[in-house]
Each structure stands twice: as C-alpha cells, then as structure tokens.
C-alpha cells in the first residue's frame, strides 16, 4: 500500500498518532530556495509499521523530523498524538517528544567511550539519571535484542548490527508509543537487516507506531509492513 499526497488519508482520523498536513520545509541555499519537503499530507495510525522509502535527498529524514517534532515545518501542521506541535513553545514540544517519541538517528548517535548500557540509559539523564528499576528495564531491552552479554562493552567495540540494535534499544528505554528510525538497516548485511526488521515488527505488534525512513528496498518490500510510502523530491509519490 503506497502513500499519495492526493489520497484520502484523513489528517484528522481519530486513530491518528502522527500526522502532517500540507507541510513544506524550505531552506535557503545562497540565493536559491530548496524545498526539502513540498506539500506532504500524511496520517499514521496507532500500532502500525510504516516505511518511508526513497533515494538519498528525497526528504525522508526531514519528513521524519517533522513527524517527530524535531524539525518545524516552514508551513503546514504537524501533530503528535493529536497535539499540533507547530505552535508549541520549545519546552512544551521537548516535553511532548520526550514522553511520546523515541528517535534512532541515521548516525546512531551512540556516545563513544561509554558502554552499551550507559548509552541505553542516557535518555534518562534529563530526569536526574537512572534508578534501579530503569537499569532493570534497560537490561531487559538489551536481552530482547540479544545484547545483554555486551552491556558493559564500549560501543566502538560493537559490530554495526549490534550498534544498530543498541540504538533501537535506547529509543525504547523511556517506553515511548512512537518510534522513528532513520536508515535502521543501513550498512547491515542481510542477516542483521532481517533481525532489525523482525524487531520492528515485534514492536508494532506490541502496540507501538513505528516509522522507518530508508533507501533499503528490503525493508520497504517486507510483507509485514503496514504502509510503504515512496518519497521523491520532497513529495510522496
């Protein structure tokens, strides 16, 4: 099922968890204006696995950022769990993101020099650090992703697949209902990529709303994906 900015996706669906309406993102590049996202309307329901696929520079990361309230649109509306984020004050938007959205960035953003467990516990820092039950929960997440025995290993000593799974585990430590992942299978071999996809399907089955931006066709063509949206030149095809 592919998305289309002219399809009848209801931006105000009551089951909508993430939504954007006629969003544009424009950047100045010298005298020129670049439209990274051009007039996208999208509504994603609860407990769904959605994939944004497209070539590099299509606007996937920008759209992902707008869906998660990390990037503000130049115009148009973006909603997280029914709350419009475009008018929110920074601290309110941050608080909303912190409780609702988990991000796994393209470069993973794992902190070198820290262990895998320390990285997974990092999102708890603004709250004053990890309590005993948080550590227990983090270890359970690592076990789920087959990484418990690597908990005390520094991240630079992990393989690509292990780091990818560790980054996903980190997004879950605050138990957000929404997960946004940018290129979750990048630079992974088939076996590791399949493991990631399996993990994402499991998370969807757990009731989470998952959106993955990728140029990897393997993820987009997996039959278990609820929605595969193709993006090109800032628009949904």
């Amino acid at each position, binding site marked *: 099922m592919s998305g289309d900015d002219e399809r009848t996706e209801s931006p105000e669906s009551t089951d909508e968890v993430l939504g954007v309406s006629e969003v544009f993102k424009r950047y100045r590049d010298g005298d020129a204006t670049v439209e990274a996202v051009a007039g996208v309307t999208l509504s994603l329901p609860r407990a769904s696995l959605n994939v944004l696929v497209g070539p590099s520079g299509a606007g996937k990361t920008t759209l992902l950022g707008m869906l998660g309230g990390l990037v*503000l649109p130049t*115009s148009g*509306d973006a909603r997280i769990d029914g709350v419009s984020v*475009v*008018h*929110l004050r920074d601290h*309110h938007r941050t608080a909303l993101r912190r409780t609702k959205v988990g991000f796994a960035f393209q470069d993973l953003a794992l902190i070198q020099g820290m262990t895998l467990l320390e990285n997974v516990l990092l999102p708890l820092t603004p709250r004053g650090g990890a309590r005993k039950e948080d550590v227990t929960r983090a270890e359970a997440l690592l076990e789920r992703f087959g990484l418990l025995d690597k908990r005390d290993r520094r991240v630079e000593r992990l393989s690509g697949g292990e780091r990818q799974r560790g980054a996903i585990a980190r997004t879950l430590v605050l138990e957000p209902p929404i997960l946004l992942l940018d290129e979750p299978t990048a630079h992974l071999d088939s076996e590791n990529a399949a493991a990631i996809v399996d993990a994402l399907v499991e998370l969807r089955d757990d009731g989470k709303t998952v959106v993955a931006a990728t140029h990897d066709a393997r993820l987009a063509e997996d039959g278990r994906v609820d929605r595969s949206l193709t993006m090109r030149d800032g628009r949904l095809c």
Partner: protein
Amino acid sequence: MLTNLLRPFLLARLLSGISVSALVVVALFVAVRVLRRFRLGETSEGQLLLERRAELVATLVQAALGMAIFNLALTVLAADHLSQAIRGAMCAYGVFSSNDLGFLPLGTSALAALACVLWLTLHRLDLALPDPRLTRRKFIALFIVGPLVLLDLWATLAWAFDLDLGVVATCCSASIDQAGTQTFGAAPMGGRVTLYYAALATLALAVLALFALYRRPGRVRAWTAAALAALSVALCLPAIVGYVAPHMYENPRHLCPFCLLHADALGIGWPLFGALFLAGSLGLSLVVLESQRRRAADDAIVSALEARVAKVAMLGFVITFVLCVFPVARYAWISGGAPLFGGPG
C-alpha cells in the same frame, strides 16, 4: 547643558534609558505586525515566522523592561549623587526640586517601572503556556508600556539638560521637613501613630493574604491580596515619611524620605523602598494574571505562576514590615523608651 551629562550615574541612567527605548521602539514595529497579522490558528509560513519573530523580540523586550525597572533606582541614585555637586542640596530631594521639571522624571520612572513589572508578568504567563495564545495581547500591551518608557526617557533627558549645577538648591530641611511637619503637625499626634500602626497592620494582612494565595491560588484570594498590596503601599509611604524616617534620624522634624538612602541612616531607604515597590507591583500583577485566566485556559499554569508571584511579594512585604519596625524599635532601645515626638509614642 551637555556638561551636565558628564556625571557617571546620570550618564549611566541616560544610556540605559536610550537603550531600553531603542529596543522598545523596535518592538513596537513588531507589535504593529502582530496586531495586524497574528492568527494563532493558522499554519501559513507568514504566521509561523511571525510567531518565531515575536518570541525573539519578546525576549529582547524582557531584558529591556527589566532594565527599565532598574532605571527607577538609577534615577534616584543619579539625583542623590548630584546632590554633592549642587550647593544646598543635601539629598536627591534638593536636586529634583532645583529643576523646573521637579520630580517629573522620578514620577515617570516609577510609572514606567510599574508598567514594566505588569508587562513582564503577562510575558512570563505567555511563556509558561504551551503555545503563544497571549502573545497578541502581550504586544498590544506594549502600546501602553512603550509610550511610558519613551515618556520616561524624554522626562529624564529634559531634566538632565535643564540641570543647573551652579544653582543654590533648597535643602529638604527647608521645604519637605517644614511642609511635612506642618501637615503632620496639624493633625493630632495620635494620627501619625495610627497611620503607622495601620500601615503595619495592612502589611501583616497583605502577608497573610499572599500566604493564603501561595498555598491555594484562586480568584478571590488573588484579588484580596492585590487590594491589600495596593493599600499597603498607599499607607506605608506616608507612614515612612511621617513616622519611620524621623525615628531613623532620631529627629522628629526630619521627614525626608531621600535621606534614608544615606549611610547615616544605614542606607535603609534602598531595601525599604525597593522591597515596597517590588512587593506592591507584584501584588498588582496578580490582577494581570487573574484577568488572563480565561484566555490562558490553563488553570494549573496560571495558579502556579500566581503562587510564585505571591511568594516573592510576601517576602517583599515581610522585609518592608521589618524595616518599618526596625527604626522605631531601635530608637526605643537607644532612648530607653522615651517618645520621639514628646508624647505617647
């Protein structure tokens, strides 16, 4: 005269006033745009850009108006220091009264400072809310605050240029003390005492009302606290002049409030008037918060801010109370209980 300006505190006051006014003028241009185009429900590029711009400008205005509040102290400080350069002027009173504009710059500074406190309260409430639903009102309010700030700048500049350091000024003893003694002297001695104790009682009630508001914010408590805050200021000012000051000077005929700023009065005037102004203006700002409660549509946020404002105002009135009692108690201790005014004290 330009040479008048070559006095450090006066120069500081003028430069501060000019910077504040410049920022306010810039903000007023943005305020016009906000008034004409700000529509919170829209998600057009123009609206989103205007929201960001308004937030940035409001941040600058916050700094400017904070400085404008401080300008009130700078006005008094400048005048007090100039008293050393003007013959006959023993304090800021002599400096103000030596000039045709008189106390106008002090009045405009006080009015502008009060308006700034009220605007800053509205601004803090707007920032605390999830979205800029009070931004339009906040910028509309700048059309009141802005002109007051500019009027203050004009009054201060005119006063500074009109200063004649060669004039022989009238000392506070020759005018305010005489006038004050006549005013208070015409009334029964008990009148001064009654006024003093009425001021203390009102301060105590204001503290209690603010404490009650701090514990449980609400409309009735806020209005009660605001009314008592205003009444406290209205009673404290004449009580300080007529009763507290003479006790501090140990002289029943010396009433000048400006001399309380000096070292021989332990500089008590600074914390006393400072605390009174802060507490009084914050007390009045409770009215601003209550008036925006419906539009804010978030009782929890409004109440939380009311509680914080009440806490600071309460502290200000406690300090005022202590500093109103201290000179009287000190004199009683020094004099062994002898009344200052020659009758029951």
